[in-house]
């Protein structure tokens, strides 16, 4: 399964309680749509760390990195390229 699908499925199952992939676009803001809150974002970070074997640093926990599937994918790519 590709990464964006993995992330989307996690969000659908845990925050939107849906199996309908069409109900979440890659660009949709997870905060503005009410999908994640203060505790939801922690669950999302744990999922990202476990699934993609990275460590999300405190200063990386910002909307620019985590507020949509697309942003999470871009963040993962950036993180990997910076780690060489």
């Amino acid at each position, binding site marked *: 399964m590709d990464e964006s699908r993995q992330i989307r499925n996690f969000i659908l199952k845990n925050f939107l*309680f849906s199996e309908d992939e069409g109900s979440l676009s890659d660009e949709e803001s997870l*905060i503005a749509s009410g999908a994640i*809150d*203060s505790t939801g*974002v922690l669950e999302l970070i744990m999922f990202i760390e476990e699934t993609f074997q990275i460590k999300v640093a405190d*200063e990386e*926990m*910002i*909307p620019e990195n985590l507020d949509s599937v697309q942003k999470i994918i871009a963040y993962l790519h950036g993180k990997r390229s910076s780690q060489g």
Partner: protein
Amino acid sequence: MARSLPDSVRSHAFDAPENIAITMGSRSHTYGQLWREIIAFAEWLKGTGFKAGDRAAIVLANCPEAVIACYGTWMAGGIAVPMNSQAKSRELAPWLRHCDPAVLIHESGNTDMEPLLESLATRPRLLVVGEEPKRIPGARFNEVVASRSLSVETVSAPRLDDTPAMILFTSGTTGSPKGVTLSHRNIASNAAAVIEYLELTAADSIVSVLPFYYAYGNSVLSTHLAVGGRVVLELNMVFPHAVVETIARERVSGFSGVPSTFALLLSRVDLSRHDLGSLRYLTQAGGPMAVALTRRLLSALPSARLFVMYGQTEATSRLTWLPPEMLGSKIGSAGKAIPGVEIEIRSGRQRSIGADGIGEVWARGENVMLGYWRDEARTSEVLSDGWLRTGDMGRIDADGYLFLEGRRTDMIKVGANRIYPNDVEEAIAEFPGIAEVAVVGIEDELLGQVVKAFIVPGVAGSVDKMAVLAHCRAGLAPYKIPKHIEFVDALPKTASGKINRGALAVAAVTREES
């Protein structure tokens, strides 16, 4: 303060037009610009036939437009009704039917607007903030406020009197919503008291994460605009790191929160790595904060003074405050009455039951609401001879400091949000195959409480948990969705047949811990 709030903002617009009033991200409004847009909004309203006493429903997250809509409504002689922007159509509809607004201001992309409008017998005139495909007809906010106003110089602001200025709904879907109705005098007098003890001036600025549609967030906004200060908007605490960076970057002097705000800051951000030396004051309300958390906060931000406060929407916002220097000797106290307010403890018909006697907290002052909107029966239950019955239990010690001893209602507090169990239970009960449901608040390390639902399935047997949660998501604001669901055979009842929430709360804690 002898001025209404819009009159104060008006004076800042003429005395210090270049001073910044509101900052959000890269956008800033000076007082001069803010006032021009407020007047343009008021003129547009009046042009639509909006009359004195008409209501404008404002369904917006914190943004400059929410401020302009509120003050513009006041300048048109109307009543501003800020509504929870996270609410779904089933929650918004009863509020709208109850206050019957002439105008509704909402954000583009709010997918709940279409079903909401279809459910209303009378459609208000719509005004849309942001870019919106022309799906729903309505004027555009940016076009309305861009129009050149003729009367900026000459228009006079509402007087400081008992004219209704704002309705804040404190509960929703139970058929008869409670709309706390506040006058210009209520709002201005409560702001003046807070300004006095926080010693706010035009040099002050604050990062605000608390929604304007709640009394606390509204008070943070009112107090800072009243002195000509600056309000820096951050939408929420989902990313505490971003909030801390804003505090550091903007060099603000204040920050306000509920216990979960500070729990999130302390648990998720290493504050010592940021220069937060500009912070002069922190305010905390929205329920008691654990002593350990208070001590950690004080040690993490030594330059700031922490003001613990208590109040309720029916009292505009604030009733008591604890002077920072008393935190040591009176820790755990909600403080003493704010300027202009009296509090007393009553037990049954007995008034002023003496030091440390436990009873119900009553309050009197210019901040006490006019009443619940169009609901005399409920108003008379809480207002008596100018006194407000708060519903909170407490005692006042020999030095005059209030200690709260719990609430008489079952309200659940999730972060800065207050939830009436009935609202969630009604939504869940609509799902097919459920015989009975009860929800309680259970402790949560970060949010204070989260919602747990106990569900008794109907005769058909099993109920799909995911489907129940999806149903909740469709009909309830996100913070009301249960974090935990437990299916049970029966609910504990009292002798009179009511659900025994106390027993359920104990059961909830025991089971989640095991």
